[in-house]
């Protein structure tokens, strides 16, 4: 419940504050958001599996974000930033889909 409230609070804060993203962070924010979404779905699935652990959730959340940003940064330095961003998004998208499928099986038994 607190997670849902936190999500709502974050969205409202973003809408009210209307911050501008610093120029250096602009390439990394979208990838970081996708990575965080992956971690969120992973945590939801783990909760339904009954093996949710806050420490693991925190670690996976932060490491996902950092690693995704790092990959994009590395790709930018190597000149393949766009392609690596696509690769990261594809991988994270597959994981999100599989996690969503697992959650669906838990909830609908199908």
């Amino acid at each position, binding site marked *: *419940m*607190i*997670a*849902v*409230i*936190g*999500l*709502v*609070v*974050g*969205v409202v*804060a*973003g*809408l009210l504050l*209307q*911050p*501008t*993203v610093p120029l250096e962070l*602009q390439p990394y*924010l*979208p990838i*970081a*958001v996708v990575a*965080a*979404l992956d*971690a*969120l779905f*992973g*945590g*939801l*699935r*783990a*909760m*339904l*599996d*009954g*093996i*949710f*652990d*806050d*420490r*693991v*959730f*925190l*670690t*996976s*959340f932060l490491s996902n974000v950092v690693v995704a940003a790092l990959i994009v940064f590395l790709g930018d330095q190597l000149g393949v930033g*766009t392609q690596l961003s696509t690769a990261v998004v594809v991988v994270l998208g*597959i*994981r999100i889909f*599989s*996690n969503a*499928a*697992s*959650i669906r*099986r*838990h*909830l*609908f*038994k199908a």
Partner: protein
Amino acid sequence: MTTPSDAHDELAGPADGPEPQQPVAEPDAHPAGGDHEDAAGSATAPELHEEEATAPEPPATPQPSPSGWAALARALRFRASRGQLLAGVLCAVLGFALVVQVRQNNETSLSGLSQADLVRILDETTTRGDALATEVNDLRSERDQLLSGSDKRQAALDALRRSAETQGILTGRLPAEGPGVVVTLTEPNGQIKPVTMLNMLEELRNAGAEAIDLNGNRVTASSAFAGVPGAVTLDGVTLEKPYVWTAIGDPDTISTALQIPGGAMAAVRSNGGEGVLQRRDLVEVTSIRTLPDPQYATPVPAAAG
């Protein structure tokens, strides 16, 4: 934004659903909760969780877990545990970043374009700018042409109008006014000859008179004096006495010219007449004379001149 919201709706709807089933789910919930506590406490559980989170296919659940809805409802229950708080904070960060990124993406549409698209847009913009600049130059030169053309036409019209006024005054087609003199001739002791009147006219012209009137008749280049002494005619019309000359010109020059010894006024006196000369700052020559169109003379074409 939509995905979490949908998920929230999806979670919230069924969360109310299982409420009647709570008594059934409750007995199972306790063992599950205990299981969770144990899993959290053990060191191996996180590894397991990591494995499962990455695995696309979930392995068979260790225990036939209670209904997924029940687990969800349990998770949604308000508990101020460390995990819940942590998840809440992380979800807040996620929501914040999500909204910021969406707004950013909507604001800066150009930054999301590929290099090829940017080059194409730049090229199109440059081409369009060049075309507009060329159009501006064309229109500007056209405007300059029109302005100078109308200037020329206006100048020509002004010159023509001035010329027409000058000609009109000199030929007697237009009434005129200005500084000048009024000369009144009377005949107390004799009769003024026509040649004396002609002499007077020529003296006036020599002195620079520009418009001359005699007894209400405009005197021009084609005017002629005739008649006999005492009955002078101007262009066939017998003049009434006294003779009143009205001339527009420099009053000082005219009066000096008329009064020189042996001049026009002296001639009048020698005829037994008497002349009174008045200088005026403003005299009016209102009489006009209409000239017939020239019958034989035509203007020399401008090209030949």
